[in-house]
């Protein structure tokens, strides 16, 4: 018999909800069968922790005396530029922002020691950061220069707002050229020297709800160690890609825009990261609860790594040239075993998404729900699914004359 989210929430409030992680549910379903498991289990928790470049935070730092207009001026936090095209005391800091004086790739490969993601980690860790502002001055905002220490707790608002997180599946990166390359999938050694991947597979939120039946706009989630919400589909949301019989996409597909109060987060789950030769980013921890409304929802959560397929893409030629060639397909079971086979060669694999931390997040969210500290929400609108016709368009350049 189908359950509703209200019924599940009643059980959570009474401390009676049966909660399993997306890993634990696999064996449970194998033992009990889908029908019984769907009756017994109320919530399945998922988790993921990995570098997610489309991340950042909005801040309001309050007004100085005399007042200064940040909007339209230049704002830096620890020398990292923030976007200030907003009202007087608001700005947005993106995870990939770099100080102007960072040498970038002029000495190749650049090291990208400190960027926006690191500033966010420092703030969340409670550290003071240096706020510097250059403003143009107006009658109502006369001050033109500001140099001060600020910390998260002094700010009015600090909201993590990530326009593209929690990718539903991702490419496996390899290098078929004869030179080392440095990419957002890490250093790739020549002649298929290594392969990197970045998904928590069977623990990953959207791989456990492949058609977005329960994860939608308004879904309350674990975000960076605190509480957040899904507020939209993510940018590049691409639900219409090739899918398996289990509806699980074989290619990078859905994405989420997520938001949450940075002040409630923890630097254990929000970490600045540097990819040599590529840039800075932020590793984000996300956990999403899936209410077991019926057997179909339950079956989807029991997906295992051996049933999730990812495309192997060459990052020396195919990816940079936006060619659609795929060298092969592998499962997350193969990827997590430590080697995949390609062109008769055994290739060592390494991840960027931490399965260890994904598991920790799923377990933490499970404990929050079991202890009635986390109540589920009903989404207010659904995300575009595989039948929506929504797909990812390339940019067709149009010459200027």
């Amino acid at each position, binding site marked *: 018999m189908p359950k509703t989210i209200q019924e599940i929430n009643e059980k959570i409030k009474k401390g009676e909800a049966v909660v399993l992680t997306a890993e634990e549910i696999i064996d449970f379903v194998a033992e009990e069968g889908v029908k019984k498991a769907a009756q017994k289990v109320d919530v399945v928790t998922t988790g993921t922790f990995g570098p997610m470049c489309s991340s950042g935070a909005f801040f309001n730092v309050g007004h100085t005396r005399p007042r200064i207009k940040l909007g339209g001026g230049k704002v830096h936090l620890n020398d990292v530029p923030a976007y200030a095209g907003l009202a007087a005391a608001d700005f947005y800091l993106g995870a990939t922002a770099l100080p102007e004086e960072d040498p970038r790739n002029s000495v190749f490969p650049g090291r990208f020691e400190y960027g926006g993601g690191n500033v966010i980690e420092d703030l969340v860790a409670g550290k003071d950061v240096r706020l510097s502002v250059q403003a143009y001055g107006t009658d109502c905002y006369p001050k033109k220069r500001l140099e001060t220490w600020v910390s998260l707790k002094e700010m009015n608002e600090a909201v993590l707002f990530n326009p593209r997180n929690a990718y539903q599946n991702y490419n496996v990166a390899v290098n078929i050229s004869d030179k080392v390359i440095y990419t957002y999938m890490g250093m790739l050694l020549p002649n298929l020297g290594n392969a990197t991947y970045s998904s928590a597979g069977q623990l990953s939120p959207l791989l456990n709800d492949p058609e977005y039946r329960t994860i939608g706009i308004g879904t309350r989630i674990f975000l960076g160690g605190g509480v957040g919400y899904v507020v939209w589909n993510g940018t590049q949301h691409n639900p219409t890609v090739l899918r398996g019989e289990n509806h699980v996409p074989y290619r990078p597909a859905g994405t989420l825009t997520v938001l949450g109060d940075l002040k409630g987060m923890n630097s254990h789950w929000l970490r600045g990261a540097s990819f040599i030769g590529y840039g800075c980013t932020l590793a984000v921890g996300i956990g999403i609860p899936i209410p077991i409304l019926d057997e179909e929802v339950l079956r989807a959560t029991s997906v295992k790594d051996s049933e999730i397929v990812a495309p192997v893409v060459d990052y020396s030629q195919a990816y940079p040239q936006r060619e659609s060639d795929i060298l092969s397909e592998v499962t997350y079971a193969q990827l997590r075993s430590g080697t995949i086979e390609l062109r008769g060669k055994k290739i060592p*694999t390494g991840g960027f998404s931490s399965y260890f931390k994904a598991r920790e997040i799923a377990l933490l969210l499970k404990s929050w729900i079991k202890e009635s500290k986390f109540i589920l929400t009903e989404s207010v609108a659904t995300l575009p699914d595989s039948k929506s016709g929504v797909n990812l368009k390339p940019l067709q350049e149009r010459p200027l004359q």
Partner: protein
Amino acid sequence: MAKRKLLLTFPNNLIDQPITYHLVKDYDLELNILRARVTPKEEGRLIVELKGKKEKLKLGEEFLKGLGVKVEPLALDVAFFEDRCTQCTACSGVCRSGAITVDRKKMKIVFEKDKCIACELCVTMCPFRAVEITF
């Protein structure tokens, strides 16, 4: 048989000397060169594994020091910072010597110092600066 992994730094006046030959010949040591490079300052750096009798190893090291070669034990130079490590496993895929493996049950990395050849690939790979090698 004893084993020592050493970082040898040669001043430029010693670069073209047959030092390794003497180690093998005069001290009866088995010598395995793990890495070699000449730095821009024209210093030579060799990472070697020496195998041989304990006393001969000691004498061999003395011989090197006597010539003006800087001799440093290597294993001390690779450090993993557990608190910065996210257990992403990226480093394990580039470690050729088998020093970094993954406990597949826990999905945590395992580092075996004595297998490390200080190639630095893991340092380049790690996005969280959780491994450092200091020369």
